[in-house]
């Protein structure tokens, strides 16, 4: 008879830890075994050469594509032109103004996004009202002793962010108004909003940009030259507000009618009930949709390259045509894709965390 207690033995190694997980998830059936092996082989065949190309054999500095003699990536191209990719043709002695724009944008975003920072209401007002004005003054100058810098010299990441920022800030309020208008009981307002939304949703953004860039100058008298960047910006805002309106309308429809009726019985007027009761619930409900529209807007900014504006993508493309740097297109496009991905992924993660928080409450 066993008199002493048997010491606890470690469990069989196939039932705990990484091995068990692998056995239970990757090799539990014959099909899964096959799939796992195929994918593992695929990764094995892809990743080492990729790392070899992108890091080990890559050339990081150089004067021209002739310096990129190794088989690896020619990051020297991106390195040499990084300033241009960020600031475009902005005069080098004034790029600190663009930095101020970036910092302001980052600070306002952090203010609004990080829960620990107080004063969200002021942050929102500042972001919606003051930031567009101060950004424009800092970037285009001509006031407060700042040298004017023509929008024609703007370019790169800065133009992408300018277009995205103004597009987002303007399309959300306009979209909300349009959504409310479409559900209004006033026939003129309702018809106008419906026609507006359906008209803009019915045409592709490229058409809008072409109209703004090619047709508009022919319609207005020759004495008036609209700034091309502003033309594109107005076109994008009008286009995106129509989409935003439909997203918000989806949220409005999901709010039970009782909410509105409760407001009515409390004697709240239309705007009060909308602003205090209906819209906060509706907008919160469609956050994924709104962020989705923002991400689409952010990526759509690169379409301005077809009207000759240098956003991040088109300035990379212009750089590829420098005779000194021919043959570096893969590196250029990877860089542009990476920057776009970082921004879009960031936006989508933030919206996910917002949703999670909403579910906790």
């Amino acid at each position, binding site marked *: 008879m066993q008199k002493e207690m048997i010491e606890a033995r470690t469990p069989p190694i196939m039932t705990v830890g990484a091995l068990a997980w692998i056995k239970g998830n990757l090799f539990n059936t014959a099909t899964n075994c096959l799939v796992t092996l195929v994918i593992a082989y695929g990764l094995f065949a892809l990743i080492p050469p990729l790392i070899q190309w992108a890091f080990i054999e890559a050339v990081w500095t150089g004067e021209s594509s002739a310096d990129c003699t190794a088989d690896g990536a020619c990051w020297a191209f991106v390195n040499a032109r990084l300033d241009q990719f960020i600031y475009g043709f902005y005069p080098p002695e004034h790029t600190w103004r663009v930095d101020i724009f970036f910092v302001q944008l980052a600070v306002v975003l952090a203010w609004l996004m990080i829960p620990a920072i107080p004063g969200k209401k002021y942050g929102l007002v500042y972001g919606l009202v003051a930031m567009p004005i101060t950004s424009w003054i800092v970037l285009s100058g001509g006031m407060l002793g700042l040298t004017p810098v023509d929008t024609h010299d703007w370019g790169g990441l800065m133009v992408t962010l300018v277009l995205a920022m103004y597009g987002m800030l303007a399309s959300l309020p306009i979209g909300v108004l349009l959504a409310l208008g479409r559900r209004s009981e006033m026939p003129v307002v309702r018809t106008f909003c419906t026609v507006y939304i359906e008209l803009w949703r019915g045409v592709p953004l490229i058409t809008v940009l072409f109209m703004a860039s090619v047709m508009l100058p022919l319609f207005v008298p020759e004495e008036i030259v609209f700034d091309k960047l502003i033309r594109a910006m107005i076109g994008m805002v009008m286009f995106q507000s129509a989409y935003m309106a439909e997203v918000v309308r989806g949220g409005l429809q999901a709010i039970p009618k009782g909410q509105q009726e409760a407001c009515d019985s409390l004697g709240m007027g239309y705007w009060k009930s909308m602003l205090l009761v209906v819209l906060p619930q509706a907008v919160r409900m469609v956050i994924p949709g709104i962020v989705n529209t923002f991400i689409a807007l952010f990526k759509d900014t690169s379409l301005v390259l077809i009207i*000759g504006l*240098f956003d991040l993508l088109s300035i990379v*493309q212009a750089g590829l045509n420098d005779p000194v740097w021919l043959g570096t297109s893969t590196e250029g496009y990877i860089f542009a894709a990476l920057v776009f991905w970082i921004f879009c992924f960031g936006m989508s993660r933030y919206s996910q965390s917002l949703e999670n928080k909403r579910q906790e409450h």
Partner: protein
Amino acid sequence: MLKALVKLTLPALLLTSAGLQANQAGSTLETVKEKGFLSCGVNTGLPGFSSPDDKGKWSGMDVDFCRGLAAGVLGDANKVKYIPLTAKERFTALQSGEIDVLSRNTTWTLTRDASLGLNFAGVSYYDGQGFMVSKDLGVTSAKQLDGAAVCIQSGTTSELNLADYFRTNGMKYQPVVFDTSDGTAKGFDSGRCDVLTSDQSQLYALRLRLSNPGKAVVLPEVISKEPLGPLVRQGDDQWFNIVKWSLSVMINAEELGVTSANADKMRSSANPSIKRLLGVDGPKGKGMGLNDDWSYQVIKQVGNYSEVFETNVGEGSPLKIERGLNALWSQGGILYAPPVR
């Protein structure tokens, strides 16, 4: 809420009005002189013709032409504002007065000359569609390309020219279509096609994008005529003349051996043609509304045609395009400019 609305729309209105600029109507020359710079429409990026370097400085043949024009009109080659334009918006930009001259590798055709309200001011580069083949193929003439797979950019005139050429010669081909010229180079490089076709000026640039440029050759055949030149608006003959003669002066300077380096010395030359060219003697700037030394400024600040060609697309550039048709008429090419007198 109304207040908030005003707050939201006010900046938008301010922005709009800030974007409105008064553009003086009237003669282009006066407009250019008044604003103090030349608005020049260029390609958003074409190797050797117009591309921004890492400092944002534009360079290329089309760019140098605008610099020459600015040197003649304003006395300073750097007083140019480059407006990068895509193929689709180039003509509108000129028609609407956004630019003063369009110098953007535009082919001179009857339709464009006759129906756009624009005038071609001459030919700055004689281009033509050509073929690039892999050396391993052992092909020496385009006539031997029967049955070949051809990489080509979609939606270009090259696509139509190619179909015409193969049909007239009774040959078959298999098109491999890409939407960018870079794509065609990548397709050719990876062996998806035996032949790449495009304008010859671009073939040389595309060749440089290959992993091993040495293994590809450009065939001698040119299957289409693509004379590229600057355009101006119709109805302003003075400006038309200025643009036309800025180009002619560059070509004449090459013919007479005047370069940016020796322009000062040449002013005291005994040759009457050179004297007239440099505005020491002869017609000078009269009749065009320009300074007497305008042509001297063009040559001094930018150079003659050969200098512009060699630094941007010729021996002095990575492209290494040969002069070919773009050599002077006296040297086997067809470059010919009317005399300055």
